[in-house]
């Protein structure tokens, strides 16, 4: 029963990891930007949420209504200025610019908010509340909520990309920028919209992690970015459902590792990550377009 429990907890944590990963996957899939500041931006969103809750006294769960649009606007602006400027030069420059952004954000957070970690108080009922399945399996309300949010976000993203006008343009631009330009599409604007969406999901990821655990200035790189990368690689780039699967596989691997020995939690996740890289480098679900 302990193993079943580990798997179920792993699946639920996988939802959180998928939320970490989908923005990273979208930015890479559309603009070929590997955003090394991805995790730090999630932390920024978490801190923003703490600030918004403190100042405006909005209910904690509804803080995303303010933070997500703010981050989306930031995403559009960053894409149109800093990131596009780097993209116009080369892919390597883009990598360096997002790395620089990561360093700046991390040190800025340290400077202004100290190295203390802080959480987003979602309320005791939600954080430690749970219901029991069978006799031994406890399912926490918060992990379940986060998993549900992840699924809704991925479904929404899938629906948006496959049916809306801008979703279609995003896919077209990802395929062939020049041909999209010839059809009248300003790919820089389309990139900006894709970045806005990615940053919106990053905001949700940061808030979710702040409720689930604690945020510190370094959480962005040492946890969120790493897990996001692992989930994307395991699942397969450019596939949203692969991202969910990748998150779930990573989460389950960690929980099973922890079940064997509590100190093996992270190690088990990275072993699966490495195994996928070696045995199936295209990820568990490879991209449909390559067929």
């Amino acid at each position, binding site marked *: 029963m302990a193993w079943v429990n580990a798997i179920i907890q792993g699946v639920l944590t996988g939802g959180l990891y998928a939320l970490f990963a989908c923005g990273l996957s979208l930015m890479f899939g559309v603009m070929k930007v590997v955003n090394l500041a991805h995790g730090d931006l999630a932390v920024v969103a978490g801190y923003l949420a703490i600030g918004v809750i403190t100042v405006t006294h909005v209910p904690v769960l509804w803080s995303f209504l303010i933070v997500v649009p703010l981050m989306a606007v930031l995403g559009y602006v960053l894409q149109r200025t800093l990131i596009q400027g780097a993209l116009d030069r080369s892919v390597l420059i883009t990598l360096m610019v997002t790395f620089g952004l990561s360093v700046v954000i991390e040190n800025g957070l340290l400077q202004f908010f100290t190295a203390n970690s802080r959480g987003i108080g979602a309320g005791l009922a939600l954080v430690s509340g749970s219901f029991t399945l069978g006799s031994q399996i406890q399912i926490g309300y918060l992990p379940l909520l986060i998993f549900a949010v992840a699924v809704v976000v991925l479904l929404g993203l899938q629906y948006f990309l496959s049916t809306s*006008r801008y979703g279609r343009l995003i*896919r077209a631009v990802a*395929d062939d920028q020049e041909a*999209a*330009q*010839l*059809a009248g599409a300003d790919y820089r604007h389309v990139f900006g919209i894709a970045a806005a969406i990615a940053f919106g999901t990053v905001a949700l990821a940061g808030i979710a992690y702040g409720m689930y655990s604690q945020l510190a200035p370094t959480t962005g790189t040492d946890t969120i970015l790493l897990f996001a990368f692992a989930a994307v690689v395991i699942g397969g780039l450019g596939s949203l459902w692969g991202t969910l699967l990748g998150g779930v596989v990573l989460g389950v691997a960690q929980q099973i590792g922890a079940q064997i020995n509590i100190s093996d939690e992270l190690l088990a996740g990275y072993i699966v990550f490495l195994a996928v890289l070696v045995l199936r480098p295209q990820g568990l679900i490879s991209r449909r377009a390559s067929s």
Partner: protein
Amino acid sequence: MTAAGNGDRGENGTPLLEVTDLVVHHGQLQALNAISLRVFPGDVYAIIGANGAGKSTLLRTIAGLHRPSTGSVLFDGRDVTGLRPERRAAQGIVMVPEGRRLFGSLSVEENLQVGASYARQGPWTIERVYEMFSWMRERRNQLTAQLSGGEQQTVAIGRALVANPRVLMLDELSLGLAPVVVQRIYGMLPQILGTGLTVLLVEQDVSQALRVASRIHCLLEGRTTLEGKPADVTADQVEAAYFGLADATAAGPPGEGSEP
């Protein structure tokens, strides 16, 4: 918005597209050297020349994908030299790029929808493209990779048409296609022209170009070697201009062919 009194098909009116002294560099290499041309409404203007003559560069520069070093591009009397490609497309300069360049992860219909995203007002709709090519309606949900080369080329033309261009630019339509397929695609030209379009095309196959064009313009190593109506040039002149034989200049006043 339009130039005064510019009838859509009036010969010898104001040119719809006027390129003057265009010079384009690829790095150190000079790809185009002082190219000038004037395309009038209703023209089928064919640019011919051997590989590397600069035909595609010329078309891409008119579309806005290359920046000229000097020279200008006027569209309907307005200078568009500094405009980005997407702005030119929205004004009615639409190109079918070499190699078709369809969106591979999009279905046939989605390709057409992207083409129509920033369309001008005009006669062409996705529905009209489907009427012209009924197979396309039946296969609209397929990915374009599942189509044959000729079908892909037709979708690429459809994608350009639904934007309702005023000038439709076709870059190397026949590339990689069987002659019978090429014939069929060129066979669509009259229908397309019937909706008031002007066509500027690049073609390596000279006899094909001579058949369909109302004017031809031959390039050789980035320079104009011949310009005129197909009826006014002889096969020898075309050959000389195409291959750069010594008597090419005697064939006609190069570059000045369109002067009144």
